[in-house]
């Protein structure tokens, strides 16, 4: 486990010298934070490299940091998109994070790297309103197509907004 962690950090620093990576560890799991414009290249490298082979994308989701207190410092952007990827061959799980600000609320889609990300990104778009560029089919997932709000954002109330969903006529 430990050698693979060092291998990953070394390889990423060697290959992407210009990208600023922040490595952190919590409860024995490695997390890498980087800038959102490098998402597709870093993910493709992690998937295709022979010593790493992160072929399974387990999860794509986003965090809404609407409130400002009790947060890890250095978070100015409103959202963070999180990817959890897993290497079946080497038995290692990695978390990748990229900050997305509310003003340019978009990030490149990694569905060209892993097809799993297709529906996961649609769900993240549906719940948070983050647009994924170059996504083959960005529609809403759970909510109806004409729903105007993004439910998992912190400013959406728990009980919903009356009148936001059209109910069938009696």
């Amino acid at each position, binding site marked *: 486990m430990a050698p693979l962690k060092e291998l990953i950090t070394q390889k990423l620093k060697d290959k992407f010298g210009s990208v600023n990576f922040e490595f952190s560890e919590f409860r024995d799991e490695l997390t890498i934070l980087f800038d959102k414009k490098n998402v597709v290249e870093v993910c493709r490298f992690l998937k295709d490299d022979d010593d790493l082979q992160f072929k399974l994308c*387990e999860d794509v989701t986003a965090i809404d940091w609407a409130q400002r207190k009790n947060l890890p410092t250095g978070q100015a952007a409103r959202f963070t998109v999180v990817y959890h990827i897993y290497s079946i061959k080497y038995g290692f799980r990695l978390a990748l994070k990229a900050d997305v600000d509310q003003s340019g609320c978009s990030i490149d889609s990694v569905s060209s790297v892993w097809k799993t990300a297709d529906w996961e990104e649609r*769900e993240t778009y549906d719940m948070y309103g983050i647009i994924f560029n170059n996504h083959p089919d960005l529609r809403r997932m759970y909510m109806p197509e004409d729903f105007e709000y993004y439910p998992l954002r912190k400013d959406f109330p728990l009980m919903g907004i009356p009148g936001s969903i059209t109910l069938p006529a009696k």
Partner: protein
Amino acid sequence: MEKITKDDVHPKILEALLRDTNITAEDALENEMILNMGPQHPATHGVLRLLLRLDGESVVACVPELGYLHRGYEKLAENMSFYEFIPHTDRLDYLAPMANNVAWALAVEKLIGIEAPPRAQYIRMMITELARIASHLVAIGAFAMDIGALTVFLWTLREREKILDIWDILCGARFTNSFTRIGGIANDAQPEALAKAKWFINQYEENLDECEKLLNTNRIFIERLEGVGVISGEDAVDLGLTGPSLRGSGVEFDLRRSKPYLFYNDMDFNVVTFPEGDSLARYFVRADETRESIKIIRQVLDKMPQGDILLNQPKKVLPKKTEIYSKMEELIHDFMIVNFGVNPPVGDIYSAVENPKGELGFYLVSNGEGRPWKCKIRSPSFVNLQSIPHLIKGRMISDIVAIVGSLDPVMGEADK
């Protein structure tokens, strides 16, 4: 019956359905048919809507639409403490509720940084494996019923009733039993529950053999399923399939082996894989996995230690009722934990277990308060359903039923 026109289908869905051709919408509805295999259907395993574009009887394209059972669990989780969310986890994969409870308890314990005592962990293993058998029995039964073999459904559910009786003795509820607690389990396993579990595993294999005798060499069953819905191992990993569907394509990936949790390191069991990748292989994986679960339960019953079933750490785990009523400190801790929640450190974790349907993961982000700041439920059925358009392209309508049954989705999980 009225033919559905293009005004009844939402334009974005229509666009997704007609994506790979160069014919316009008007032409498609003259030559091919758009059929709605609607949310209410006896064979779609719940409320799954499939929009199919058919050329005669064979499927040209398919767009699944989810969300008919969306209950907003992730939003709810942000507003309640970790203890309060346990009953909601029952209702995710409602065919194996104990397994979801164990998954949530493990995720929260990982976040807080505690570990349940050994006896609790062995009992959790036993109930997870019983849940696995229960879920696979329904999967096999419903799958065979969709193909046409109605008797198998009754026999597998008869076996499942015995498991539900065991859970009834254990925790008082046959179904949606919120049995695990953060730091252990709710109450100790009674001797009669353990005796019944032992009786169950001793008589299970012959009953499973009876069901298999009806199916395994049945010509109709094999011809309906062999070569139907084939997916290669690489495509399966790329699409994110996990669980029996992935192991039916030859990829040996089981979280109980790769990232062991509870005491699975000490258990001796095989990871069942079949290389063909068709629906028949997925059926065989499920049937053989129940046999492996029987082996695990036998070892658990032999090796179970005596001891506590709830961790004795009053700041993080609710203390025992008798102590709350008699001692001051426990009373204060109980008050703090119930009202303000256990306060985990700031950070986020992802914890996954091997559920009967695949890999159930909980991604919990905490900002120091008693409620999670964010909880993402990575449900296996949601990701498994994504492979449906890939699997049913070119096949006929009756194969859709076989393929959806072999993937075994549960909409409670897929829609959260």
